[in-house]
């Protein structure tokens, strides 16, 4: 049985390559059929805003990578309710459909369920 990995993504999409590189770990794990979870926490929730205009900040759109997650077999997708609320992000209209919205308590239990955790 392969070890499971939870990636906690904490960076805004346009603050540097961090968010993209975090996502790359998840996609690579999915490509190897490994059990991977992805939690959007703190500024990471900004990655999930719909209708972003990446071109306006001369960046490449991250949403294509996000939408590739289910195709790579990554379906354990989570967002922190508190992080979203603190930033005025409405979890009803996020860019990914498969997200589960978790409370702080849920997140404690989530981290406990995974064998390994990377926070980026």
């Amino acid at each position: 049985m392969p070890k499971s990995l939870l990636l906690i993504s904490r960076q805004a999409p346009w603050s540097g390559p961090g968010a993209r590189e975090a996502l790359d770990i998840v996609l690579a794990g999915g490509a190897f059929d490994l059990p991977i979870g992805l939690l959007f926490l703190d500024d990471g929730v900004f990655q999930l805003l719909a209708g972003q205009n990446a071109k306006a900040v001369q960046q490449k759109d991250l949403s294509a990578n996000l939408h590739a997650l289910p195709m790579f077999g990554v379906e354990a997708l989570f967002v922190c309710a508190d992080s979203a609320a603190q930033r005025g992000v409405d979890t009803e209209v996020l860019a990914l459909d498969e997200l589960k919205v978790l409370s702080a308590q849920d997140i404690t239990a989530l981290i406990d369920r995974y064998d390994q955790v990377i926070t980026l």
Partner: protein
Amino acid sequence: MAAVLLIGSVMKFAIALFSAAHAPSSRRALLFAQAALAGGHEIVRLFFYQDGVHNADSGVVIPQDEADLPRQWRAFVSDNRLDGVVCIAAALRRGVLNEEEAQRYQRSAISVEAPWALSGLGQLHDAIQDADRLICFGGA
């Protein structure tokens, strides 16, 4: 720290480093790795990702009276014959190239040499599967 690690059985560690060579977390990563080996544990792989790739950069020049972390990493990995992997995509993005990649992209600067190997993220996942514990340094 080594004494603490000695308690219990021998562990296989995978170590991931995400911060640049001048970051305190990069120094902590090296100290942890040294303590792990000193405590009789095994390091299955070091994986340098994001700004962590700069720890493998032989182009880093440190004033003589300061600690030269890239040099210390190089000696540590060579002396202990460890598997030191630098993520190729993260390294290319940051201008940290080995001879093969410098040729491929027609760049004049070569800054990664043995004992480091440039490879892909599969090597991180492989190490995670192989290790008892993944220890990360310098993440967000």
